[in-house]
């Protein structure tokens, strides 16, 4: 705790003097999702200003990227947004493939989409559960983790890992899907889809929950775009923008799915207190996105062909001179990779655009003149993963 008193001087006569305090929220704090540190300037329960301090989880991912080959770097990608390792691997692989001009076989595409969407569900489940905890509802957290466990079981059966997969790699996937995967996945989708409605009834429409999150931390469209917000945070503000649709990559143009956006309250079963762009909208977009992911997964299972799952990738892949910047729609927003090659097996530069990094940058703008209890509600609804912010 740093000592306080920004204004220890007696105020001018007649002026009202209030007691301001600097409070350190994090890096060890239950609701900062890892090691985020927020300096709050508070006046009683009122937070006047929020200053995020990041970097506690900086692991030099970009420096490592300049020193290892792309295939070696894929495991590091897993550790960026450690809740959505598949999506990170996918983004990096796509960037390298684009730079080298590699073609991924058909089945590889489908495996990638399946894994990415499954991981999106898993990650949104964590986000849903943790957000409930931020608001003070403990129980949904365990329900979310129960469902996530099924997905992790699937991942484990596929690649042997439950968190850092190193599965989607340059040229496709490193292994084929295991036997019985399709049936298990189909079972899981049937099991899981009705649960989303259950959780909506349990938490999303809960009166207290709505009161806590609706009209809290409202981000306007202009702000969202200006601060470079992407993913559910951007869509929560009512912008129907999703790279899977707006700049299609992989094979997402083959699937039918909707892009949920934040809607004003009062219609479609949305509580009347809700304002577009508030914490509730961001949270609810994630709930709806899980449904869309289930839809995509079902279509994948129908369309998936047999065949090769990985392109022939030379043992030492030389990255041609030139650079490529590629963004994919990660779980938390647009995950971008800038890869600069120079005719060597290792790239000159790997720049990672972590969506959480940009999403977090709006926190000082939003967490002003809010109550202390709103800070976890806002930061939780932005859903940052510090591994990706600090890289």
């Amino acid at each position, binding site marked *: 705790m740093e000592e306080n008193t920004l204004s*220890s*001087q*007696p*105020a001018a*006569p*007649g002026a*009202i*003097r*209030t007691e301001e305090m600097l409070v350190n929220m994090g890096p060890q704090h239950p609701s900062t999702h890892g090691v985020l540190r927020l300096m709050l300037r508070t006046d009683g329960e009122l937070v006047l200003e929020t200053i995020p301090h990041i970097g506690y989880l900086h692991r030099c991912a970009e420096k490592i990227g300049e020193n290892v080959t792309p295939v070696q770097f894929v495991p590091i990608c897993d550790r960026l947004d450690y809740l959505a390792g598949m999506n990170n691997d996918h983004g990096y692989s796509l960037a390298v493939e684009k730079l080298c001009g590699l073609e991924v076989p058909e089945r590889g595409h489908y495996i990638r989409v399946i894994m990415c969407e499954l991981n999106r569900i898993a990650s949104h489940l964590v986000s849903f559960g943790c957000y409930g905890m931020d608001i003070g509802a403990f129980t949904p957290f365990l329900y979310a983790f129960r469902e996530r466990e099924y997905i992790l079981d699937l991942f484990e059966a596929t690649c042997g890992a439950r968190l850092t997969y190193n599965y989607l790699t340059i040229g496709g996937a490193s292994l084929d899907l295991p036997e019985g995967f399709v049936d298990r996945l189909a079972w899981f989708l049937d099991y899981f889809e009705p649960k989303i409605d259950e959780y909506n009834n349990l938490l999303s429409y809960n009166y207290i929950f709505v009161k806590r999150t609706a009209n809290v931390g409202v981000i306007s469209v202009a702000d969202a775009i200006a601060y470079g917000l992407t993913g559910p945070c951007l869509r929560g503000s009512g912008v129907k923008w999703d790279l899977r649709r707006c700049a299609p990559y992989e094979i997402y143009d083959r699937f039918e799915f909707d892009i949920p956006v934040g809607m004003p309250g009062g219609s479609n079963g949305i509580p009347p207190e809700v304002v577009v762009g508030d914490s509730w909208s961001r949270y609810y977009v994630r709930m709806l996105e899980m449904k869309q992911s289930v839809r995509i997964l079902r279509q994948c299972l129908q369309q998936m062909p047999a065949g090769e799952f990985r392109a022939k990738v030379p043992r030492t892949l030389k990255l041609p001179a030139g650079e490529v910047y590629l963004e994919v729609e990660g779980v938390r927003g647009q995950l971008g990779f800038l890869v600069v090659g120079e005719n060597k097996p290792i790239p000159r530069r790997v720049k990672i655009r972590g969506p959480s990094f940009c999403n977090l940058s709006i926190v000082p703008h939003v967490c002003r003149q809010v109550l202390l209890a709103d800070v976890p509600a806002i930061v939780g609804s932005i859903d940052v993963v510090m591994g990706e912010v600090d890289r």
Partner: protein
Amino acid sequence: MTIGLTHYLILAALLFCCGLFVMTTKRNAVGILIGVELVLNAACLNLVAFSRYRVGTIDGQIAALFIIVLAAAEAAVAIAIFVNYYRMLATIDADKGDELRG
């Protein structure tokens, strides 16, 4: 040895004197308020003791009841004033409040 009126009165006198001392010497305004509470308590104790040992009715208790209620009201106003005082002068030292101009 039975406990009688004098015992209570002496105890009340002690509380009263302590309260008086706190009131006169403490510089923290809230401390002064605490002194006032002590004095009021002493008074209440006296009233109840008199009503029990000298009159035998409950009138003293009623008076003490009023004192307690009024003390609560007094504390509420006093704390409100102190909070404003602190906002104005950035101190709770009662000696600093010698200006009348707000």
